Every structure is written in C-alpha cells, then in structure tokens.
C-alpha cells in the first residue's frame, strides 16, 4: 500500500530520521513508537507530504481519490461548527462545492451519525465543537478522518487524551477500518500495551541512536 525508501527528515541541523525503509500492506496497523521529541509527528507529516523529505521517497500503491488522510495531534477542528458538521466535512471531497453548499446528502449523514454513535458522541450531534471536552474532540477528529476513508490513514497520537476504555474502542475501530476497507493505518502511540495489542508492525526509534528507526514485526514484548 505504501513504501518508504531511505526516508530522511531533519529540522534545521538536527536529523530526526535517517535512511528509514519500510513497507505497509493492505489491512495492516503500524505503530510508530518513540519517546517525546523523537520525531514521530515529523515522520508522519513527512509521509503525508506536509513537509519536504531531506532524502528518500514514499511510494503509494492506491487508486483511491483520497490516498492519505491524517488525524493531527492538534485536531484542527472548526470550533464554531457542530459535531455533526465537523464529521461530515470529512466527506467533502466526494461531492462538488455546489452539492454541499446547503448541506450534505442523507447517506453521508447516516454514516456520520453511525460513527459518532460508536464513538459515544450521539448526544452531542448539534453541539458546538468548542464546547466539547478534549477527549470528545479527539474522538470527533477520528470520526472525521474515518468518514473520509483514506487508503492510508495516519494518526498522530490519536488516543493521547482518551481514557482506557475509549482508547481501546478507538484503536479497535482504526484496526477494523484497516482490515475492512483494505486500507492501512500508521499510528503513533506511547502506551506499549496498546502497541502489543493492536500493531502488526512497529516502527521504533532506536533508543541509542534516535535518528535511526527500526522496523519490527510485532510479537509480545518486542518493544
């Protein structure tokens, strides 16, 4: 689905990633593991094409109209919009500006409500996003990207503000999404139990040499 060949990234003079090669297949869930400041966000943004690579390249094998979609750490939601509209804004690319000028198709609304139901936000559909808690906003950002249905879903610490129950439900949904949609998920995580439970592969920053990243198959206690 996506390959990285000798990827290198740096900020100023500091190398965050050097010569990382990996490949992710359809249906896989990849965990990105490293300490704070190790460059997980930069790596995800580099894969998404938001920032230029210092070396190497990424190759995507997909014909989807939306190859890559990202759940950002800072969520990037429209604060003055309702929960439902924020989720629905994920499907905009499937419709013309004229079609979405006055609203969204009923079919999309159904899908959005179903996602919000699974993420426990069904009572907040018409509430302004600014009035939601951090955890609710995080689930909302996840719902928006899931509705968009990208082939490669990148998630930057998507469960950082969620309690154990919601973190498990959310990661389960992301994993199920990868399998059901023939997509793949690359997700940065801190909790090693979650990595053990959900990841098929792990891309991990080398503790001795932080700019070196290793790709591991996930087996218990590998990390």
């Amino acid at each position: 689905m996506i390959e990285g060949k000798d990827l290198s990234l740096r900020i100023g003079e500091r190398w965050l990633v050097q010569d990382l090669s990996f490949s992710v297949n359809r249906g896989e869930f990849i965990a990105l593991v490293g300490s704070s400041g190790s460059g997980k966000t930069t790596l995800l943004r580099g894969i998404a094409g938001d920032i230029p690579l210092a070396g190497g390249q990424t190759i995507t094998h997909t014909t989807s109209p939306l190859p890559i979609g990202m759940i950002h750490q800072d969520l990037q939601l429209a604060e003055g919009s309702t929960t439902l509209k924020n989720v629905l804004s994920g499907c905009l690319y499937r419709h013309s500006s004229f079609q979405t000028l006055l609203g969204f198709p009923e079919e999309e609304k159904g899908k959005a409500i179903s996602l919000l139901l699974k993420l426990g936000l069904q009572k907040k559909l018409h509430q302004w996003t600014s009035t939601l808690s951090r955890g609710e906003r995080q689930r909302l950002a996840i719902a928006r990207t899931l509705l968009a249905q990208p082939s490669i879903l990148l998630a930057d610490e998507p469960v950082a503000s969620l309690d154990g129950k919601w973190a498990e439900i959310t990661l389960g949904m992301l994993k199920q999404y990868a399998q059901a949609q023939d997509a793949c998920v690359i997700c940065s995580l801190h909790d090693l139990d979650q990595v053990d439970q959900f990841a098929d592969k792990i891309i991990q920053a080398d503790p001795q040499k932080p700019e070196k990243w290793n790709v591991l198959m996930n087996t218990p206690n590998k990390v």
Partner: protein
Amino acid sequence: MNPEMKNMPWYNRLDLPGVTFVLFLLLAFSSLPALEGSGRDLDYWGNFLRFTDQFFPPDWSILGQTMTGLWETVQIAGISTFLASIFSLFLSLGAARTISPRWLVFITRMLLNIIRTIPSLLWAILAVVLVGSNSLAGVIALTFYSTGYLAKFFSEAFESADLKAQKALQSLGSSRWQAFQYGLWPNLRPVIWSHCLWMLEYNVRSASIIGYVGAGGIGLHLKLYAESADSWNKFSLVLLCMLVIVTFLDFTGEKVRKSIREKLEGKM
C-alpha cells in the same frame, strides 16, 4: 545608571508612557483659557434649572407619533447595518493581509480610512443633498459610515482566524470553497455576527441624530421640538423613548455577544 543604558541614544532612554503623560498634562493645563467662556456674568446654574424645568412632565400625548419615528429610526439602522455587512464582507477580503496581495490591501485600507474619517452627520448631509430629505438618505449615510468600521473589524477577524481547520479539510481533498465554508467560516461567523450586532446598536444611536439634518427617523422630531419655543416637554419624551430603546438594544446585544463569546471559548 546602568552602563548599557548610558551608551543608548537619549531618545531610547526616555520612558514613553511617562513622557506622553507629561505632554498630556501640559496640553490640558494650557487649554484652561477655553473654560473662560463668553466672559459675560451669567447665572449658569439658574439657566440650567430653568431649562430642564421645562422638560417635566414629559408630554405623553405625542407617544404614538414618537413611536412611529423611533420605528423608522430602527428600520434605518437595521437596513443600513444589513447592507453594510454585505459590502464589508467583500471589502474585508481585500483588506485582509492573510488573503489579498499587498497592493489591494493598501488600496482597500486607504478607502476604508477615508470612509471612517467622515462623520455620520456629514454622510447624512451628503446623502440629503443627493436624494432629498427622507429616510433613504439616512440609509445611504449609515451604510457608508458603518461599512468603514465593519470592513475593518471583519478584515481583522479574517487575519486572526485559525486556518488549521481549513487546511485540514483541504488535505482531506475538499475544494477551496468547501474548506472555507466548513473550515474557516464556522470560526469566523460568531465573531462577524457579534460585530454586526454591535454595529446595529451603534446605528440606532446614530440614526437618532442624523434626522436632525433631514435624513429621516426620530431626529427630525427632535429638531422640530427643539426649534419651537414651548415644546421641551415633547423633546424630553422623545429623549426618554430613545433612552428606553437604546438601553434595551445595548442590554440584549451585550447578552447575545457574551453568549456567543462564551460558547466559542467553550465556557458553556
């Protein structure tokens, strides 16, 4: 003195708030001769009491026609705020540094500065010359006047808006218009609406006075009563009605604006 300060030019060593405060005091005291007035020996307090005595009791017999005049004033304020909001939306796009090229920002801001420099009363005189003495003149005057302010407020809102949601939607494949409509506009809309409400309140006050030069509304009633010798009790009723309506608008406008602000900040 700190040796580093000693090496600084004298003007950099000045305490700007202190210097400007001293200049302000100098201006105030040098203006004392303005308090001398005409120099005639007048009974100021007695004059004031005799004048205000004629205000009471207000003449309630003209309540009906006063309410008609006030309604016309509110209509002038409403339609001119509406028109100014639409013009301002377009002009503010040109005046926002984050959206338009420098040359367009410069031209639009110059135009808005010129519009704001002209007081509402002068706009009203110009409009009366153009379309005659009626409420249309009031609408024209206040539309121009409010556009100068609203376009400035809107452009500042555009410049300070958080663009992250808009960019997120573009990265999810939406068109530029869709990203604006669903990413940027929801964040701007409450701020812009809040400015419009403030302008409406302000315009009701302005519309009350522009009638003095013939631009419709309650101001015309004020002028008539002020010019006839024994109508100060009618004048006072008009003032009383204006006070009620302006206070009501101030109160409700502030309530709505506060509620919008708190909702956007996630406090409710």
